[in-house]
């Protein structure tokens, strides 16, 4: 079933479609929120995102463009949370919590998540959207409300910063 059909069924009010929508998109939303805010706050913010998504469904005019719309809402929820916690969205970017105990998880994954959480918010955001959520440059640009060229430059910078963090981590081992 296409996303558009699923969204149309949700807008019609079909309960099965609504639960299917949550099942299909829960993990991508959670991955994005976790990548942006860390594991500790992922559940609360993911729930906030879903409440806003379902409340906003009747106003979604282009069901075929669900993914960018969904991540725009998720981005707003993440930004609100960051603003609440740090006053301004980027102020605490370098203070993001890192994985403290990597013993329970795969080491590589923990290192990657830790490195991701140390990136500035804007760079982390495009990295998560482009690589983890597999969205196109155009969709990332729409979600972040910036031109596609800006997304490209942020991606370049994000890759460079991530590489630096991982290299630094590797050299310390």
């Amino acid at each position: 079933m296409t996303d558009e059909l699923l969204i149309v069924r949700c807008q019609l009010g079909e309960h099965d479609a609504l639960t299917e929508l949550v099942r299909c998109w829960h993990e991508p939303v959670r991955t994005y929120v976790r990548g942006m805010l860390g594991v500790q706050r992922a559940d609360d913010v993911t729930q906030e995102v879903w409440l806003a998504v379902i409340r906003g469904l009747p106003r979604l005019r282009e069901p075929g463009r669900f993914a960018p719309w969904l991540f725009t809402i998720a981005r707003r929820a993440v930004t609100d949370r960051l603003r609440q916690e740090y006053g301004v969205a980027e102020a605490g970017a370098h203070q993001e919590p890192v994985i403290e105990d990597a013993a329970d998880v795969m080491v590589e994954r923990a290192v990657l998540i830790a490195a991701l959480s140390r990136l500035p918010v804007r760079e982390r955001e495009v990295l998560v959207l482009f690589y983890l959520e597999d969205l196109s440059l155009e969709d990332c640009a729409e979600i972040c409300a910036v031109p596609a060229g800006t997304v490209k430059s942020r991606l370049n910078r994000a890759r460079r910063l991530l590489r630096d963090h991982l290299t630094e981590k590797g050299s310390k081992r």
Partner: protein
Amino acid sequence: MNDEPNLSAEELIGRLSPVLSPWRRLRGVAALVGGLAGAVCAGSLWATEPAALPGRTRLAFAVFTLVCLAWAGYGAWLVTRRTPLLALDRVIAGWFALAASIATTVVIVVAAVQRGAGLAPALATGAVVTAVSAVLVVRAHVRRAALLRRKRELTGRGAPPADPLDGTDPPRGR
């Protein structure tokens, strides 16, 4: 620290039940429509009383009207801020509002005729609320019909099944 998802999709669906359940979504509509209808009826009966009422009766009317308005306010808050109204919800809500409008109009017009006062305001009020409800019903059906059309296009079905809520016959094939 465990990196695996703590909140599963099923848990999330459970937490979202107030917005996922159609009956829960319609609670706000019931509170809004019932509250407004009660307030209009009580206010109309109070206003058309032929003789001066005792203090306790006036107080009772005022309290009942305020309680109805409070329910209407709560319902409006639920509908506008808390729960979405999807296409089928809007159709049900529209018909519910229309039925309540007609019933309220009948009550206030009968009361006005029996008391021989306030017929024109009662008719005007009834006409306005009924017209507003009728517009909401039509808009809800139009929106739902558009979504059903789109669903049929996407599923690639030809002749759609008859939909009792549409009030229209499906197009006939050759």
